[in-house]
């Protein structure tokens, strides 16, 4: 092809900008939040002591080692992974469905995961066990598998419907209907269940990062990291999908394969987090919007890591507040994420002027 590529004025051109500084700042914030969540809790442990414990040294009090290693560290890691997973999963869904209101939960995926968990907890679990105290790897796996199957089944169903309907609003309504259906089945299960199991289920639905032990972490961490890796591999596809499926196909994207990949990654991320931490609403929808507003970009090569980092930060901070430092009260995590997060997101998006046509809001 005869492309006479002229020499152009270098400085006049915009840079595509992967915003390394902004991402670095976000990573710093995530790290800070991580350390804060180790410092604060029902017992306050000085930061230098926390660092001492982390590097394997001897702190002033021996009990602190247990607190950090057995409680706060797994909880902070869980929050980090869950926040990153939900942020990325929400971003994927919003781009795939080209709908700013989409997140894995709006489309009924969370309800699917809840149904999977409800089936395990309410009908299979032993009568005297609280959820997730179904200790041991097998118990974890069955829960994760149940939640993932539930989430995956719903997402695939939504996608099959997505092939048939053209309007994403229709699809959203269908997703909501699926959500209602699964919620109805959960309600039926609840009504036939005994009080203890119902209590366990409700406690699970409040959401918590605290229930994950080290042995459970061995399941959670690899699965979430795998899902995130798959999401990162699919950034190019997500960028192409910005223009809609017709354009994406015209640029050589294998839509079917990309869609399956994106759905798989998103379902695995949302399903796993829901299984271990309960249905944590809000982060999945809010974090992508927050990242778009802060970075003023729609490029997934920036948005995806940003959503992971900001999601982790938000989850860590929300958990910190939910612990109500200095008290022994633990607030429902779900209430905290939305109660504090929603006004913050509204404020930032309005202030940064996400603008007309700026993918929602």
């Amino acid at each position, binding site marked *: 092809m005869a492309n006479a590529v002229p020499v152009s004025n270098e400085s006049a051109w915009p840079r595509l900008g992967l915003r390394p500084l902004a991402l670095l700042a976000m990573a710093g914030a995530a790290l800070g939040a991580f350390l804060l969540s180790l410092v604060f809790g029902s017992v306050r442990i000085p930061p230098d002591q926390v660092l001492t414990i982390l590097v394997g040294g001897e702190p002033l009090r021996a009990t602190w080692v247990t607190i950090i290693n057995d409680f706060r560290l797994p909880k902070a890691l869980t929050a980090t992974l869950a926040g990153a997973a939900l942020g990325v999963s929400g971003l994927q869904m919003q781009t795939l469905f080209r709908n700013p209101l989409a997140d894995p939960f709006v489309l009924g995926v969370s309800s699917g995961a809840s149904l999977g968990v409800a089936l395990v907890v309410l009908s299979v679990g032993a009568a005297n066990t609280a959820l997730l105290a179904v200790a041991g790897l097998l118990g974890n796996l069955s829960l994760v598998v149940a939640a993932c199957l539930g989430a995956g089944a719903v997402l695939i169903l939504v996608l099959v419907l997505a092939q048939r309907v053209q309007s994403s609003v229709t699809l959203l309504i269908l997703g909501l209907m699926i959500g209602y259906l699964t919620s109805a089945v959960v309600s039926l299960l609840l009504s036939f269940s005994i009080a203890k199991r119902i209590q366990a289920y409700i406690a699970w639905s409040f959401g918590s990062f605290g229930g994950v032990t080290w042995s459970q972490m061995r399941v959670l961490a690899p699965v979430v990291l795998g899902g995130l890796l798959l999401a990162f591999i699919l950034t190019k596809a997500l960028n192409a999908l910005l223009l*809609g499926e017709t354009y994406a196909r015209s640029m050589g994207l294998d839509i079917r394969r990309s869609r399956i990949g994106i759905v798989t990654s998103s379902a695995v991320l949302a399903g796993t987090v829901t299984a271990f931490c309960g249905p944590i609403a809000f982060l999945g929808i809010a974090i992508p919007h927050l990242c778009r507003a802060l970075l003023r970009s729609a490029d997934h090569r920036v948005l995806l890591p940003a959503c992971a980092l900001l999601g982790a930060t938000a989850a860590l901070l929300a958990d910190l507040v939910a612990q109500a430092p200095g008290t022994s009260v633990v607030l429902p995590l779900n209430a905290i994420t939305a109660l504090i997060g929603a006004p913050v997101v509204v404020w930032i998006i309005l202030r940064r002027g996400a603008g007309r046509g700026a993918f929602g809001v």
Partner: protein
Amino acid sequence: MSATILQTEALSIGYTGRQGASRVIAANLHLRLHAGEVVCLLGPNGVGKSTLLRTLVRMQPPLAGRVWLDGADLCTLPPRELARRLSVVLTERIEVGQLSAYALVALGRHPHTDWTGRLSPRDEEVVRWALEAVDAVSLAHRQVHELSDGERQRIMVARALAQEPLLMVLDEPTAFLDLPRRVEMMRLLRRLARETNRALLLSTHDLDLALRSADALWLLAPGGVLHSGAPEDLVLGGAFEATFASDGIAFDRRHGSFQVHPPAQRRANLVGDGLIALWTARALERAGYTVGADHTAPALLVTISDDAGRPCWELGVPGGSSRKVGSLHALTALLRTGHMVVADPAADPKLDRMEERGSQ
């Protein structure tokens, strides 16, 4: 003749319904597109232009026959290879959110980049070249959602260009644009085809512009007949008239444009000359009169005269009243409301003029 980029061989287009029954829209098409050529696909609504375009860009399979793109069978090209030879500009309005025009054009490099989507220096060069080619360098920094329709369309053309295709297919690229922007767009597309030696196929409803700027027309007539040739050939051969034949619209071969007016039943005689007479005749035609200078037994007599340096029109019914008006708007309003018949000869023409001003 320059290199053939696209060629169809006994192509049948249409839809396959349930139980294998197919609805053929056009059959046995033998079409050719050459490098450096702009071809406009024209046809009345619903005749199957979109189906033809969709088939040629592999968004739907042909019912029969073959499409050769640069010597390769369109249906067997791997998606990535196809995307390197063929790019599209669609009518659908895209919502990309916070993306600069530059980043949008860079998305066009998709079939050329590796799995990470990272742009090499050569990719960036092509993006810049594409922006320069469509005169959109100054838009590069702007956010896509801030652009006007015309600017956005230029960026979408640049994106398609950045794919470095041999053939660009544009579905109604001039829709949503005002007349100057449409002319600019066509001029741009012609220049691109010439300078980059690519083939451009576009569908349009803009007959006038297509007649004036296309190197060749594909005229898809009802019944699946496709006439192809230079615009002038098609006009002289009568294919143009036949394709768009319809009530209330007539193709004027002399001017190469369509005349739109309701069937005229009444005759009017017009006295006057120059530009004013031309436009008065148009106003009268619009109102349903056949305008002449010496019709026998006209229903209306219009005399253009001068009222202290401003034009005015005197309307008369033969053997009846007459009346003066100060604008063509007032004239057509009079004809429309039928007041002419019972017009008050004493009416002050200045009053009409005042009303006209007041309503503006």
